[in-house]
């Protein structure tokens, strides 16, 4: 029973785990870069969710098929491509902010920055 859930839906469990790790990173870590890493993990966990939802076991890509076959829903993949672009841009903004902060305050430790500002 439990095995069924774990093995049949393990990707969903991983998505929840990743999300929690991401949250932990954003909340628990003082270093801004680590916070950003947490943020990225959090975002990517959602991508995993989308992809998992689209997956059909044994399905193929819905291109270049001559006859009807089981295929994977392509739309979530496309959506997630967009979302990945967004995530990468966010990370880029975040990292450049971190660089500016480091230049301005000389540290990336949140406590020290708050003391300095």
């Amino acid at each position, binding site marked *: 029973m439990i095995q069924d859930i774990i093995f049949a839906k393990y990707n969903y469990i991983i998505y929840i785990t990743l999300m929690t790790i991401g949250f932990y990173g*954003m909340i628990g870590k003082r270093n*801004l870069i680590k*916070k950003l890493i947490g*943020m990225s993990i*959090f*975002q990517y966990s*959602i991508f995993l*969710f*989308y992809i998992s*939802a689209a997956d059909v076991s044994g399905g193929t890509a819905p291109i270049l098929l001559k006859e009807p076959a089981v295929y994977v829903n392509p*739309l*979530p993949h496309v*959506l997630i491509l*967009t*979302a990945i672009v*967004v995530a990468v*841009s*966010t990370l880029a*903004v*975040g990292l450049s*902010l*971190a660089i*500016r*902060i480091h230049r*301005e305050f000389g540290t990336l430790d949140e406590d020290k*920055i*708050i003391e300095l*500002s």
Partner: protein
Amino acid sequence: MIEHFPVLIIAVGLLGAFFTPIIGLIRKELCSPWASLITLLQFLISIFLLYQVLAAGNISYWLGGWQPPWGIEYAIDILNAFVLVLVAGVCFSVSIYAKKSLGFEVPGKELPLYTLYILLSTGMLGIVVTGDIFNLYVFLEIGSLAAYALIAVGDRQSLMASFNYMIMGTISASFILLGIGYLYVMTGTLNMADLSERLPELYGRPVILVALALLVVGLSIKTALFPLHTWLPDAYTHAPSAVSAMLAGTFTKVGIYALIRVMFTVISPEYVIETVPVMNILSWVAAAGIVAGSVLAIAQYDIKRMLAYSSVSQIGYIILGVSMANKLAMTGGILHILSHSLMKVGLFMVAGAIIYRTGIRNIYQLKGMGKKMPFTMAAFVIGALSMIGIPPTIGFASKFYLAWGALEAENWVFVAVILLSSLLTAVYFWRIFENVYFGVHEHEEIKKDEVPLSMLLPILIFAAITLLLGLFASLPIGVIEHWVTGVLP
């Protein structure tokens, strides 16, 4: 040409943003007029769209000719068009104001600033114009990314404010994305109209509840609804004044628009009002936000920070009106989107003007400003009176409808909250009036020293509109009521 306007409003913005750096490379000074031109175009298109919606009914534009639900649809009804005009109008006016203000506060950064400015404007317009829920997420992120960067060009503390906002904004967007994901998994469609048709069969499944909670929390962050407002005061305080003005007037409002859209169009009003009283809990949170925002505003000394907390309170008003979900309150809430936008943009521009001329931010140092900058301060007074809710300003009309709606709902606590917060608002603005008009400057002779016309003019226009719309409040109210009657049972 005309039938392509819904997409043109976005295309103009995206192309405009793309060409800004190129124009900036030719001559830096051209960036600002270019941004004004682009936002003016968007403004004109949005006015035309509003006109068309009012005259000929809802517009549905199929991107690339693909029929929805396969293709992306831009669907415009009265609410969209109304918010479009508001957002585009504010973006245009502030872009004129921004020339001098940004030039003073963050000199030499025109090139990236105006690119981002146009992107932010376009992102917001995209959120409003689209009829596809995933598209909404994408535009939300376009706008947000531009906003993070724009905030970060402010003073020293703005970096951490922006960072905080970015983390919160990303969580918000991710929640929205996840919520959308659940809806998609359940229904297999992303088109809003299509979703609203397919969802009713699925009501009662826990996964819809999770999606709902994710969407509400995600959008609450974007609208800075108490207690998720924590990013807002820092961001508004430390961002350049023009950016604060624009964000205060538009971005949170667009978030509220999205909330209304999701709650009342995608998911049906019956569901969020009766089956799962989402609106019930939201209205209490909003009421808490109204009072807390006002109280925290009184405790502030920095004028921009005070205005930011005041925003928290006023956003509470809007959400309260929307979430009480009767016709009067809803009308009041949506009208308050307009009135708060007008007043808050005006007030932030005045704050920026004061900083431009004197560099003062502490409200107890504003003594004698009434003589130094008579027109600016007069506009401030009008905005503040509207904020308090004194006729004949637009703020009065919306608060009147809100109070009326609360009475209709027979919720006396909300009535008391609305009136009490008016008094608190009066308290924190009077402190400023007192200093501005009666405080005596000991040292120097005060000479009239107004800000340049390009800054003064938008300020005065906003004050004038606040007054004029107050006198002719029936105009926007009629438009809004039309939409509200169509949505609420």
